[in-house]
């Protein structure tokens, strides 16, 4: 893979991150809970220790640009994201770190499952067009697409947790229980994870299936498929070696773009199941108008998406030799 390709992609990612940090900085100034207002005591209920720390950190007696911005950049680069208004003034970075794990677990796994199942379903649907699986799958995918994730979650919760009692209704682990062994802990987490995971996967599967299906259908009209057929290759071989590698290409790009939209669903699903991750944190911070935390979440999620896009770009480069020049 060309060096130019890599540097171009990396450069783009870095530029985007810088723009995000800039946006964050501007937002921060706009916020009612901005440092000046804290100092002037307009935001009630903020501990005085936080006021002092904020003043020092942001260098608020110096001009906005470039001094304050540079100070902000430097602090952010070091991982210092300010202090939460609530939670006794804990550093935002700490708060985020604590909640990051459960979110990664839920969404990493959810995306993975959705990608594998969704792409497989979509490919099968596109290959065997017009079959029962195709029509039913298509209809189901459309309905799933129209359903907000949290609604799906609420429905699943109602049916399987409250109704059938198969799963617990909230949290990641049972409250106040000490686990006999690591295995027990895993099982407990697993039981709590099941419904939110199912929600996330179902929500995403529909989109990926539809994407892959139209991509496969499009690919099948290409000339090289006719050639492959004339070569006397089996259907399976044509699908695996010719159709799929090409059909995957637009799908990879779209999966990456989709990530920005998935975040909305992510947040709400956590709320429904009271899953202790970044999503629940965001909504709680919103209610409490804890702006530093909100800012931190924005920054973290943005960077994650940029990195994910970068990875998707690199994967695309691996799959399609035409962009590598």
């Amino acid at each position, binding site marked *: 893979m060309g060096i130019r390709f890599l540097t171009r992609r990396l450069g783009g990612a870095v530029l985007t991150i810088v723009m995000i940090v800039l946006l964050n900085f501007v937002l921060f100034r706009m916020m009612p809970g901005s440092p000046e207002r804290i100092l002037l005591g307009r935001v009630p209920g903020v501990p005085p220790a936080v006021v002092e720390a904020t003043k020092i950190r942001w260098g608020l007696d110096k001009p906005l640009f470039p001094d304050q911005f540079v100070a902000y950049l430097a602090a952010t680069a070091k991982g210092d994201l300010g202090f939460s208004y609530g939670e006794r003034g804990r550093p935002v970075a700490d708060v985020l770190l604590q909640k990051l794990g459960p979110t990664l677990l839920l969404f990493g796994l959810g995306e993975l499952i959705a990608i594998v199942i969704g792409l497989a379903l979509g490919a099968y649907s596109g290959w065997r067009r017009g079959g029962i699986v195709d029509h039913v799958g298509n209809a189901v995918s459309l309905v799933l697409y129209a359903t907000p994730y949290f609604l799906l979650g609420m429905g699943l919760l109602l049916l399987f947790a409250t109704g059938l009692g198969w799963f617990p209704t909230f949290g990641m682990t049972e409250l106040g229980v000490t686990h006999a062994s690591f295995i027990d802990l895993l099982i407990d987490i697993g039981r709590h994870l099941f419904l939110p995971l199912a929600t996330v996967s179902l929500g995403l599967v529909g989109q990926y299936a539809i994407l892959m299906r139209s991509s496969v259908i499009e690919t099948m009209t290409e000339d090289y498929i006719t*050639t492959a057929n*004339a*070569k*006397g290759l089996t259907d399976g071989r044509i699908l695996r070696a010719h159709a799929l590698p090409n059909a995957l290409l637009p799908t990879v790009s779209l999966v990456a773009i989709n990530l920005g939209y998935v975040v909305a669903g992510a947040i709400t699903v956590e709320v429904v199941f009271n899953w202790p991750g970044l999503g629940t944190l965001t909504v709680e911070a919103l209610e409490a108008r804890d702006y530093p935390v909100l800012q931190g979440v924005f920054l973290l999620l943005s960077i994650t998406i940029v990195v994910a896009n970068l990875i998707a770009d690199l994967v695309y480069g691996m799959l399609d030799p035409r962009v590598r020049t």
Partner: protein
Amino acid sequence: MSGAAGRVAGRRQWPLPRDADPDAPLLEVEHLTTHFRLPNATVHAVDDVSFRLNDGEALGIAGESGCGKTTTALSLVRILPSNARIVSGTVKLFGIDLVQKSPAALRRYRWREIAIVFQGAMNALNPVRRIRDQIAEPLEERLQVPRRDARKRADELLELVGIPRGRGSAYPHELSGGMRQRSMIAMALACDPAVIVGDEPTTALDVMVQAQILELFERLRHELGLSLILITHDLSVIAETCDRVLVMYAGKVAEEGAVSTVFRNPRHPYTGKLLGAFPNIRADRRTLDVIPGSPPDLREPPKACPFAPRCPMARDLCREVMPPEVTLPDGVRVACHLWPAGSDGVTPAWTTPSKPQLEIGADAGVAAGADAGAPARDVA
């Protein structure tokens, strides 16, 4: 691996299919008829087409777009859309009728016996796989050749078609149009097929490259004893490369015979017009002989001669009765009332062109109708 070592002057290395009849002609197509089912109609794309290809021969199939030449070729190994059906006829390869074969059994013959070089190799190659791998693919998948040997053979084939060894690891988009077409030819040769079908193999290329490709075909025929079916609307290609020519019109055979005979003395008026319509850079300047009108709608094939509406020699007979296929003494087959059964092949049934046509198919009012059929005039 004896096969992987390649062909030695002339004879194929792989054994014939089990049911093959060693005395039968290489390829014999008889009364092939292929229809396409549309929602409201049936298109008679190929109607009662017969021809034969002998070992080592090159047959050119000529005609306008839509005359059924490509469908004929694709029908040989049934690479057809799902709404197409071979309605009747036989396609006998080594005496084995491919039409009767089930799809699974037919697969055996694809590429290993009949390989197709498609038009516009731009998109006919998979853009995300290397050339070498695509050439090696039929060897690996169809002949169970181990990967390393298959790759070696692929490189040999690339050299054979004139592509330097190192280029095998390139992707299609990194090659020029001519090199892509050569790669397609190398790919077609991979399994040592009995017949190679070239569907407009030079149409998408510029003239210089066209010449190179044709030269390649010549060389391959010479060195490997290749049997070839070349489909093209370009008669000069057929003149240069083929032994025999089959002229098709509206899905039916118009004329068929040795290239030298047919081109020097075309019997069917359509063949004559085709040859006349082709500009000759060396001959005197003359008006371009255009064939007015357009081919008939194949959804309702006419019950009489399909060329009658545009034919300068047409008489009432032509518009009422379908001309039978007649084999003339010099071996040319023709379907035209000018050459009825028993004709000596020298004197047509009539020689005067018909009166200027008042209605010439869809293009009524085209002025060229007035001099239709008149021999080429000198326009100094």
